[in-house]
């Protein structure tokens, strides 16, 4: 057998006998470890890796964490978990242990950071800081992915050692930079001479810095400046005071301020608050009071007591001399009227004067002695009289005055003190109304419907004025007057003859020219209060006088109305009588028109004139105007224009009625006139007697008698014809005919049937002769002594010869009939 083969057999044998190695599966191992745990052979927590293939003890884990942190300096737990291959939960847990055990480590936002890491970071920061001279913490924080507070807390202990710089408001600065900015702040602060808001300064400095550093410059916070500034103030490098942290008042300014105030005050012994405000002292009065406790604060200024002494002396002087003064004129320009009034109240002489009624203060700054006011009052009172006379007489003198009054009319309503005068004038009106009523009742005038009517009273002064004027018969100025009076009416409507404030002011201005001479900007300011003061007294005295006048006028009014009634009765009866005669000619229109017109022109006109004039007068009296002449001549006649103007000046409804009457006067029908006349009589409270039979007869009789006596006494051949014809009509028709010359012919022809032949013939002949005579006279030219005058003379002789026959005709029949 082969040796080699034997050898191999042996080897194979031994190989088969060799003990086989023993292998354990993972599962078996896990079971084994569990078994060990159960048996407490392993008595600590055993961790396993993420792969599940390895067990790891916590100590090992901590060790690995430490190693990792030392290697990197800063590592997040998540990265750590990945690197070590252990679950994050365990890593976190052990990391906390690690950090708490080692003071050089910190756990921030899931990151473990070692102190050495911060050291290196600080060095980096320092490098950068030295390069840029300033670094923002926020920028660093963003770079390092930590909060800026963290960066601050880390940097603070290293400032001055690792990091050579200064931390200010989230910025890091190098000392050189800080020194530079400090120099800027110091320079700016020292340059300021007036109080300044520091934030404004900082913003300008910021701008400056930015310009210097260009776009790379980091914005410097105002608080940085502020802290530097505060340091400088503390060190005494800049002087001044800081209020509310931002208001900087340099010492230079405060000193200058005080000096200027002191010098001004000592020189002028007053200082206006405005001046102080210009010097930037916010509460001048308090400031001054604390500085000069003995001095007196006014509304806009602050004064030394010496000012009062000066003013007092001046006022005392003015009071003693019975004069007046404007305290403003003595005081410096800057004093306001309020100051003046306050100052006045402090003057001892004024206080005394006010107590003893020796002084009166007007318009805050004007001092008047009572003697002066008395003087003005007396003079004004005199002026009042002339004013009333001038205004009532309606002369042109008062016209310009009224003009001004009318001009002031509009502005007057805005015056505050106007209310006072208004109310007083209203009172006046009421009083007057009652007075008038009394007067009327006393005068037995039956108290017309319009009595006490405010409307009525308004126009009272005008009416009376008109009447007065008419009485004077100043026809030359009538047109102008009526205009002026119209104006007057307007101005008077408000205050009823009471002198207006503006009038008084005008008067005072003219009476006391010093007001103007003083060169006051607006004399009104002083004159108005003076006028207001004097006016009530004036009005009172005026009222007294008016009262007296009223009682006087009442008597006269009564008399006047009685007269008027009497006259009116008479003439109205006559009028009615004549009106009846017109009936005879109703069938002849042309003649009728002539007759109507004639009647209106003659009898009606006189009635109307008398009525108008008397009513006007009555109104005037009622208004209490003094009327000098009560004699209204009967003969006075008015032209249509005057009538209408008078009628227009009557109050309200009376005026309307009067206008109707005046219009009717211009018409052609007597009937319309009669109704109008009745209306106006009723309106004005007069009675119109109706014509009754008995009265008619007696009137007619007396008329006939009158005519007969006239005829017998008549020497004029022309007028005798008319009288004869009228008498014939009375005798034959028992009607009183008033015929104008043109109607005579018709009237004569109408008598044809009623007279015997001879008588009629005489009448017609006489009539034709008269007509030719009149024709001749009218044809004759004055200077020529030709035949016409001869013929007139012969005609006249002829008529005169025939006159007795004519007269006999009437007188005979008249006697025979009667």
């Amino acid at each position: 057998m082969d040796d080699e083969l034997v050898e191999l057999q042996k080897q194979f044998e031994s190989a088969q006998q060799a003990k086989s190695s023993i292998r354990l599966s993972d599962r078996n191992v896990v079971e084994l470890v569990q078994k060990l745990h159960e048996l407490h052979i392993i008595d600590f927590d055993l961790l396993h890796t993420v792969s599940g293939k390895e067990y790891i003890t916590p100590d090992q884990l901590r060790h690995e964490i430490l190693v990792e942190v030392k290697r990197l300096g800063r590592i997040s737990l998540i990265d750590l978990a990945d690197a070590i291959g252990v679950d994050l939960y365990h890593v976190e847990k052990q990391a906390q242990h690690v950090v708490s055990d080692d003071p050089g480590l910190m756990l921030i936002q899931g990151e473990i950071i070692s102190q050495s890491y911060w050291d290196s970071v600080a060095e980096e920061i320092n490098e950068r800081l030295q390069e840029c001279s300033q670094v923002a913490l926020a920028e660093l924080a963003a770079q390092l992915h930590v909060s800026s507070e963290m960066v601050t807390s880390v940097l603070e202990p290293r400032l001055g050692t690792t990091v050579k710089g200064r931390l200010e408001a989230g910025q890091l600065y190098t000392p050189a930079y800080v020194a530079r900015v400090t120099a800027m702040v110091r320079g700016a602060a020292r340059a300021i001479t007036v109080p300044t808001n520091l934030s404004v300064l900082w913003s300008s400095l910021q701008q400056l810095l930015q310009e210097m550093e260009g776009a790379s410059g980091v914005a410097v916070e105002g608080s940085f400046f502020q802290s530097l500034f505060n340091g400088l103030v503390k060190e005494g490098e800049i002087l001044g005071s800081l209020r509310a942290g931002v208001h900087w008042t340099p010492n230079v300014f405060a000193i200058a301020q005080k000096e200027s105030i002191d010098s001004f005050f000592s020189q002028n012994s007053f200082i206006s608050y405005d001046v102080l405000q210009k010097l930037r002292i916010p509460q001048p009065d308090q400031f001054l009071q604390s500085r000069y406790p003995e001095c007196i604060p006014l509304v806009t200024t602050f004064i030394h007591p010496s000012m009062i002494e000066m003013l007092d002396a001046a006022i005392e002087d003015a009071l003693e001399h019975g004069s007046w003064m404007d305290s403003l004129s003595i005081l410096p320009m800057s004093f306001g009227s309020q100051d003046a009034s306050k100052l006045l109240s402090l003057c001892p002489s004024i206080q005394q004067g006010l107590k003893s009624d020796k002084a009166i203060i007007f318009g805050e700054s004007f001092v008047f002695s009572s003697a002066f006011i008395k003087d003005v009052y007396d003079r004004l009172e005199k002026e009042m009289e002339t004013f009333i006379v001038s205004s009532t007489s309606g002369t042109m003198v008062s016209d310009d005055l009224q003009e001004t009054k009318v001009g002031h009319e509009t502005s007057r309503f805005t015056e505050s003190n106007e209310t006072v005068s208004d109310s007083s004038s209203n009172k006046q009106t009421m009083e007057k109304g009652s007075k008038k009523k009394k007067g009327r009742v006393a005068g037995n005038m039956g108290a017309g419907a319009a009595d006490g009517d405010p409307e009525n009273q308004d126009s009272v002064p005008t009416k009376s004025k008109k009447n007065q004027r008419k009485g004077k018969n100043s026809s030359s100025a009538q047109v102008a007057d009526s205009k002026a009076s119209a104006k007057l009416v307007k101005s008077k409507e408000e205050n009823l003859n009471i002198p207006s404030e503006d009038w008084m002011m005008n008067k005072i201005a003219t009476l006391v020219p010093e007001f103007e001479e003083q060169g006051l900007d607006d004399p009104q300011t002083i004159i108005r209060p003076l006028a207001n003061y004097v006016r009530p007294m004036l009005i009172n005295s005026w009222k007294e006088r008016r009262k007296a006048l009223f009682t006087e006028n009442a008597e006269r009014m009564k008399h006047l109305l009685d007269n008027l009634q009497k006259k009116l009765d008479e003439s109205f009866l006559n009028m009615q009588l004549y009106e009846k005669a017109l009936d005879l000619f109703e069938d002849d229109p042309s003649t009728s028109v002539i007759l109507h017109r004639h009647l209106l022109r003659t009898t009606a006109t006189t009635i109307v004139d008398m009525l108008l004039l008397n009513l006007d007068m009555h109104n005037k009296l009622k208004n209490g105007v003094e009327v000098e002449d009560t004699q209204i001549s009967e003969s006075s006649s008015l032209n249509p224009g005057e009538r209408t103007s008078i009628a227009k000046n009557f109050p309200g409804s009376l005026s309307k009625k009067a206008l109707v009457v005046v219009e009717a006067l211009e018409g052609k029908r007597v009937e319309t006139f009669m109704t109008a006349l009745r209306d106006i009589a009723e309106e004005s409270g007069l009675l119109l007697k109706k014509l009754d039979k008995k009265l008619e007869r007696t009137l007619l009789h007396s008329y006939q008698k009158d005519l007969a006596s006239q005829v017998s006494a008549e020497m004029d051949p022309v007028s005798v014809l008319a009288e004869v014809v009228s008498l014939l009509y009375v005798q034959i028709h028992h009607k009183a005919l008033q015929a104008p010359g043109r109607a005579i012919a018709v009237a004569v022809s109408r008598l044809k049937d009623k007279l015997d032949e001879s008588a009629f013939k005489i009448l017609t002949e006489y009539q034709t002769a008269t007509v030719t005579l009149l024709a001749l006279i009218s044809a004759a030219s004055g200077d020529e002594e030709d035949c016409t005058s001869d013929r007139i003379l012969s005609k006249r002789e002829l008529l005169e010869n025939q006159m007795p026959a004519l007269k006999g005709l009437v007188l005979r029949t008249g006697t025979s009939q009667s």
Partner: protein
Amino acid sequence: MEGWDPNTKSTLTQIPLLTTKAGPRDGPAWTQRLKEEYKSLIAYTQMNKSNDNDWFRISAANPEGTRWTGKCWYVHNLLKYEFDLQFDIPVTYPATAPELELPQLDGKTQKMYRGGKICLTVHFKPLWAKNCPRFGIAHALCLGLAPWLAAEIPILVDSGMVKHKDDAATSAES
């Protein structure tokens, strides 16, 4: 090489291949062959041992080395089932693979010829033919018996055909 599990395949590739093509009747050539057989068997055994996968013991029953006897075993449910193993080297060896016999299991399973010769998979014969003469006894054991045991023993144990020797003893006693 399909049909075998990856473990078997990897093991197979690690068994040293043979070079001499000689049968039992070839004299010195057969001796040479036998030497190579031994070498490969040693390597295989060592390999099994190192993998804690030792599963058989064999030795040549005659000096010529044409008859081999020994034991083989299989661990199932932590119990070791051990069987006798014997086989002859055929005259046409190595062209023909040796027929492995488990006489104790004769008649107990269908995957067996008369006399306890195990039935091999259909893949065995072509593979063997293809690798003649490089495959030897070690290869035959690895490719033939090991998979057969792994497949058949659990079925035999579960069906109660094979009983553990301890159980058999207890049952015999009872």
